[in-house]
């Protein structure tokens, strides 16, 4: 059992949980995730680790309540217990000193970008952070990201904050302004990551994406999270979740992420659609 120590609303329908999980906290690295199961009838879902406190033995998860399980989680409060939690899973992000790095987040992807951007700053990289969200209400972690980034640029779909439009437009502007980028990291809905990958490929900028496909066990056993990367089939859980964006087959990834829509399950796919998914595919 894993106790929820704190719960806080950080944005519209997005919750931050601090959970007692000392073994996971000791080992967590940027880019990794946990698989959790709320109760005996629950499903196993992957959620990225957005922060940890090794001394306190806690991890922080940022969760958007869009699917069946995340909605159940949204109803839980500090003091409640999560039945099962396994992690940290996946390979840690490879973060080296490279120069200037653009960290691009869409929606809840901000929660994953944060520990990575922080590590980039720690190793001496110049960090430019680009956040995309539906509206002002959906933004979070801006101050935290501002503290470690040289610049934070925000795009909202409705223009209620920052630039009105897509986060990829901001990236295009940066590139057009002649800002040299040594690396790009993109985390968010699959179409956003795909758009970033297409743009950076044209400009020959190394780009990493963090994928979050459907998973069951999270340990390499079920193969549900398989994704085509270049000529190879990779398992996101043990070979990823981060891959070279220019090698990822996004169309296959998108199709597989929608698997459970057909079966009539309420919103299982959006749990897994990419951390930034805001359920728009169901609208």
């Amino acid at each position, binding site marked *: 059992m894993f106790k929820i120590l704190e719960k806080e609303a950080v944005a519209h329908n997005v919750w931050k949980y601090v959970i007692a999980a000392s073994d996971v906290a000791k080992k967590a690295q940027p880019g990794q995730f946990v698989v959790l199961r709320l109760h005996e009838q629950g499903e196993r879902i992957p959620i990225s680790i957005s922060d940890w406190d090794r001394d306190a033995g806690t991890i922080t998860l940022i969760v958007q309540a869009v699917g069946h399980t995340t909605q159940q989680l949204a109803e839980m409060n500090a003091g409640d217990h999560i039945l*099962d939690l*396994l*992690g940290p899973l996946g390979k840690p992000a490879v973060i080296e000193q490279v120069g200037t790095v653009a960290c691009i987040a869409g929606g809840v992807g901000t929660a994953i970008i944060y520990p990575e951007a922080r590590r980039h700053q720690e190793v001496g990289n110049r960090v430019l952070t680009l956040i995309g969200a539906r509206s002002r209400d959906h933004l979070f972690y801006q101050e935290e990201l501002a503290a470690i980034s040289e610049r934070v640029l925000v795009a909202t779909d409705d223009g209620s904050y920052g630039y009105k439009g897509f986060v990829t437009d901001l990236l295009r502007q940066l590139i057009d302004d002649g800002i040299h980028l040594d690396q790009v990291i993109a985390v968010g809905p699959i179409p956003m990551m795909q758009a970033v990958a297409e743009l950076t490929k044209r400009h020959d900028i190394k780009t990493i994406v963090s994928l979050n496909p459907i998973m069951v066990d999270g340990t*390499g*056993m079920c*193969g549900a999270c398989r994704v085509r990367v270049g000529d190879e089939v990779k398992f996101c859980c*043990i070979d990823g979740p981060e891959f070279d964006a220019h090698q990822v087959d996004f169309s296959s990834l998108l*199709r597989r992420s929608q698997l459970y829509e057909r079966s009539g399950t309420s919103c299982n796919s959006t749990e897994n659609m990419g951390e930034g998914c805001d359920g728009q595919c169901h609208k």
Partner: protein
Amino acid sequence: MSQVDIFSKHAAGSKGTERAPMPTQPPEERVKNFREVSLGYSPETARREASRCLQCRHRPCTKGCPVGIDIPGFVRLVAEGDFAGAAAVIRQDNTLPAVCGRVCPQEVQCESLCVLGRKGQPVAIGNLERFAADWERENREDAASKPVSVNGKKKGKVAVVGSGPAGLTAAAELNRLGYGVTIFEALHTPGGVLAYGIPEFRLPKDILAHEFKELERQGVELRTNVLIGSTLTVDDLFAQGFQAVFLGTGAGLPNLLGIPGEDLNGVYTANEFLTRVNLMKAYLYPQVDTPLYLGKRVVVIGGGNTAMDAARTAVRLGSEVMVVYRRSRENLPARREEVLHAEEEGVEFRFLASPIAIRGDEQGWVEAIQCVNMELGEPTENGRQGVKPIAGSEHWLPADSVIVAIGQGPNPIISRTTPGLETGLHGVLKVAPETFMTTREGVFAAGDIITGGATVIKAMGGGKKAAQAIDRYLRHKNSRLIGQSIGEV
């Protein structure tokens, strides 16, 4: 009583007696539920079947048992009606008789060597093992062996990684030998393939739960939700005071076909399909939260036990199921009983056919699978019959879902994260023969992680031998340490 008397008595008893068939749920009923198919012998049937045993002096059957059960010994006790005694005899060598009686391929092991099998049908050793184990579980609460400790103190701490057949057996054996044992399991439920892979209708999960309860009662500690190699490393385990580590992490990484269309929606590995159903109980959806979409026409690729489990599970979920296997019926690696049960349940078999592509519809869902006919050739180096495609025989079969059950390889997590662990072909861990020690001092391994995908009982046999090797290693090491400390004084 002389030898001759015993022989003649049993011979007389066996003459004209047919092997007692295992009662089963009728196929038309069982395809509608997930309850166990085989219902087990009654005490009377068990005694009658056991009395067919000739009690051969040279005990050929025992040579076919990977864990070396005293088969004639327990069978004699069943015949005599001493069921508790029979169970105790089995337990001396086998930690999981209720499981083995259900899932062992007896027809290629103990029963293949039974003298009665030369002219007729061998003694139903597996069914009797199951009977004794079930009788014990149902009739004696405190049945299993008591915890063993040396003057109340444990000889040392051993970590067992993985709670499948190899780990479970190693843990039980180490506990019996007086060690403090902690089992680490990554999933939320222990049992490994017994939990996520083998369906309820073949191995009821309460039987498995009982075995774990029993192990815990005997003092074995079980920690779920710990992925060794990630949550804790092998080095962390030594740092926590474990003196040896046993790796029984199995072959959990599913093999893929590597053909076009394998990433289409509706293509599952057998592991995913079975995990959703067995471990996550997706067949109860929406009472449980884990969904499973399965189409009307399901094609299962493969001919092993996993393929049969997947096919029969799909039947129970209401699908029409075809198994496509590239060799002939005689070459099916699955237990004979599973094949028979699958056929009784309406599973169709297409032999000598191999998939070459999967086609999807506009939404990216499977709609057909292309196969090519195969012909048998000369045996290959590994002793199995070779097969090659027949040119021009390509054809499409309609399919709404495809389940790939073509074997599993070792999970790479531990070998990637443990310095000094060497792997061999297909990523199996290298171990020294006899000692089961890996290339890391104090780290041992057995089961599918060193052999590649094999059977439950072979993994159990390996787990048991490795546990004994760990005991030898630790006794030697500790005596050397004691010797050193005496020398220093």
